[in-house]
């Protein structure tokens, strides 16, 4: 069983690594992100297989952490794909984002 699980981990990892071709080819940001997301899920699956195969419980926690933060990273990346002005963000530190300058002149400690 040990060998089988290790083999499965290697297979899954190898497969999703092939998916990285999409990262190279694009063409759009969304496509590249999909490749990273597939690598994330495949990495999580490979880690779970590896953890059970080697009996190290903490590996499952790395997988848990990856799954949790993969969600966060994906959201961040999707949010960053399309920015209407093509610049940093909707407001940013550009002075235009603030209202009249006067109301910001307050005492700051």
């Amino acid at each position, binding site marked *: 069983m040990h060998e089988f699980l290790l083999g499965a981990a290697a297979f899954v990892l190898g497969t999703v690594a092939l998916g990285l071709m999409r990262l190279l080819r694009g063409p759009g940001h969304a496509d590249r992100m999909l490749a990273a997301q597939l690598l994330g899920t495949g990495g999580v699956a490979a880690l779970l297989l590896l953890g059970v195969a080697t009996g190290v419980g903490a590996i499952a926690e790395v997988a848990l952490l990856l799954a949790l933060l993969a969600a966060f990273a994906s959201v961040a*990346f999707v949010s960053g794909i399309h920015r209407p002005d093509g610049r940093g963000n909707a407001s940013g530190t550009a002075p235009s984002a603030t209202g009249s300058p006067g109301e910001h002149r307050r005492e700051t400690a």
Partner: protein
Amino acid sequence: MTNALIVDAALVLLVLGLALWVIATRAAYSAVVGFVAYGLLMAIIWVRLAAVDVAMTEAALGTGLTGLLLLGAAARLAPYETAEFDRRPGRGLRVLIGLLCATIALGLAVVVLLLPEPAPTLALLVADNLPPTGVENPVTGVLLAHRAIDTLLESVVLLPALIGVWSVAADPAWGGRPGSLPRPPASSALTLLAQVLPPFGILVGIHLVWNGADDPGGKFQGATVLAAMWVLVLIAGLREPPAVRERRLRLLLVIGALVFIGIGTSGIWLAGAFLAYPEGYAKPLILAIEAVLTLSIAATLGLLLAGPPASDQPTRKTS
């Protein structure tokens, strides 16, 4: 065993290839996505090297938070990308830089290859001196008992970093709310995720800190998860980032370092040395420090991601 060797070799080749591609690719956004994939592979490699603590840190920082930071930088630099490319240094200079980098890599490789055969290690020493600290995870033992000064400086250094970020704020915006996070248009799916995920993430974060005493995990990994959950809520627009002039926020930022320094200083009288723990109290004190530091680090990381103060107004447009 040979199977494992093939897998490891494949991983190494893959990570090297990806690293080369990240460096060679011109579009910043693609490079950032590649870098996140690279961090993910590195986490798996650390697991293969039986360094689960490092794998967790890499998984937490390398994939989630760094990705968001780099993405923000890439988006900000996008308008200048082509102009910068036209102004790149000449071929000679680039070859020179490449040669110097190759020399450094070669030097490192030589050092690794020339290590004496049982590699010099302090692992046995750490294992022998672990019981008095009361913790079972050697990494936590080293970080908070044997090399506590390093950890103290590490957690304090986040504060200057945050001050550095804040200091690039425009004058009128000083003291206001950070505004560098991406602002996607409101969407019910995102709102749902930002409502469902954080309770779970907070649980995992606390679990990592608590478990860090005896198993892989610890304050940095836990704090990263907490910060990620906070930033997710901010990105979804469920909460506004706090104005940086708030007293309570600033107290939260420094309390970890203050408690650490306070306990460390009291060690001078109670245990005879700065950052030494009195006999028998090492574990509760370490846990207390970890708990407060977690809060401070989480707040600091979250604010680092949120960027410099931009405005006093709620930054979200109603869309």
